[in-house]
């Protein structure tokens, strides 16, 4: 998993509240056998008028928003179905940071398992970020837990254990891998019946 310490990227605002995981990645795309490749179907029903015909009015399709890696959005992001595919789709599209008013518990935990930083900020600060010009980069400093833009600094809270994982680019597996001596020690005591 890639580490996130200080990250600067352009952003895209999608300020709807309650964007559910059915919207993020509709059910017909869940049969993919990879964690990758979901990006093209991210927000499918909003993004395409019909198959292969992008909706030119949708913000993700605007030329000036291409390559954005920070999503600024509304309240209760990722609600609904538990599908981990939702996080996989956001990540595959290129989003590394999401800034929302709040998240469903399941979506939030899924994001931490996939190296996507999900930040909570109040509405006024998100609205400020939503009005940043498309070409301007926003800086997210996870070490100091702040979002920087122009002369502004917006501070955010994050659980220490989750921060440790993200700053060090550790997934759960990498963390457990560091306990391999203890796992091997355990294995040396497993009774053998053969």
């Amino acid at each position: 998993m890639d580490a996130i310490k200080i990250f600067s990227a352009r952003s895209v605002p999608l300020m709807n509240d309650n964007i559910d995981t059915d919207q993020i990645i509709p059910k017909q795309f869940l049969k993919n056998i990879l964690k990758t490749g979901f990006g093209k179907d991210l927000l499918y029903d909003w993004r395409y008028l019909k198959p292969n015909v992008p909706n030119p009015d949708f913000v993700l399709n605007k030329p000036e928003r291409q390559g954005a890696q920070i999503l600024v959005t509304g309240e209760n992001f990722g609600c609904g179905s538990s599908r981990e595919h939702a996080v996989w789709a956001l990540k595959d599209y290129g989003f590394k940071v999401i800034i929302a008013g709040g998240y469903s518990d399941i979506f939030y935990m899924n994001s931490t398992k996939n190296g996507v930083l999900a930040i909570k900020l109040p509405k006024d600060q998100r609205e400020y970020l939503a009005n940043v010009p498309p070409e301007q980069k926003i800086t997210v400093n996870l070490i100091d837990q702040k979002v920087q833009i122009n002369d502004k600094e917006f501070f955010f809270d994050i659980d220490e254990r989750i921060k440790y994982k993200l700053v060090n680019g550790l997934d759960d597996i990498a963390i457990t891998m560091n306990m391999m001596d203890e796992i091997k020690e355990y294995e040396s005591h497993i009774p053998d019946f053969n």
Partner: protein
Amino acid sequence: MAKTMIDKIWDQHVIKGKEGEPQLLYVDLHLLHEVTSPQAFEGLRENNRPVRRTDKTFATMDHNVPTVDIFNVKDMISKKQIETLGQNCKDFGVRVADMGHADQGIIHAIGPQLGLTQPGMLIVCGDSHTATHGSFGSIAFGIGTSEVEHVLATQTLWQNKPKKMGIRVHGKLPKGVYAKDVIMGVIAREGVAFGTGYGAEFYGDTIRNMEMEERMTLCNMAIEGGAKMACVASDEKTYEYVRGRKYAPKNMEKAIAHWKQFYTDDESAYDKIIDLDATKLAPFVSWGTNPGMAIPIDKTTPEIKNADDQKAYDYVHLQPGQSLKDVDLKWIFFGSCTNGRLSDLKIAASILKGRHIAEGITAWVVPASRTIKETAEKLGIDKIFKDAGCEWREPGCSACLGMNPDHVPAGIHCASTSNRNFEGRQGVGSITHLASPAMVAAAAIHGHFIDIRKEAI
């Protein structure tokens, strides 16, 4: 302090962490199938990680597999999922009972059948019916895809210890009442979420008197009551079931001595106890759209108490106050990890012998594994089903969930030995009535359910 068998097994599997916080547990057996594993293997590839203990991992194809002409998978997405598991197992050195392999079958049927499932183990699989394996006196539960990857990479898993529930079942089961009716009866009475946050243990003389395959049925459906794990303490029946199987311990006496430590000290160890008088049970049949919506066959469908009930009635085209004996059945499904084992097929065949299914009914028999299918054929059970007008098919999950082409048509009422009667579960618009194999067999003959305790079959 008194401990439950779940406590004792759990505590022996803790590598790190204290109770009340996530604990790192060692996994003795990791079972895989084609639907929830591809992204986990992909994760290993991305990070250059091997499968840490291929000797504790076993895979098969079950959810997508056709039950006729099995090598001709017409659905391209299903085909890809099946082929991907085969390739992943090859690349990572994982044992696999591939398409057509003698050991192939529903993962929860072949674990016990191959002797992989053993008492005292911690067993996981990316599938909610993993609780089946708890019937051997082990801890067994379903996990998500990220967790599948974690187990593949480390042979461990972070989990919070559940609370413990005792389900005490006592008395002799009446004639015509089976393990399926016990678990359906518990869920009908207690609801579909009574076990949420708990690990359940079935105990009492009724359970002791059950054969292993009946105990599997019992634990299999605990998840329909919300309990992600359920178990039965091991005993002589368990040991004899395991003995001599392909992957059973070679030194059984040493193994048995170890397994005997896993029992619940006394009832004070449970956080909660529910009690069931087996002598009062009747055959259960589900009427609605979750397994809690079920009634004894001699009762009528319940009043509408809430919007969920109304929605269910609308879906199944029934009304309150109806007898399920009056519902016209057009489809029959014998199979699944709940009731697709040899003993289930034997019971159904004993009822169907010399009889014929009612006119206009389609009846599928899908043994849970190839070994079960072949054993049944040696015993002539296939012939009984075929003579009765049933289709004798190849093993797999089949019409339990309809990921393969086995779908029940819209608007059709199906008597099914499976585990879930959710909307659209067996096919878009299909209407599922869960029941025991004996009840389903009798229903097949009559074209509607009958009370097998009272009426001439």
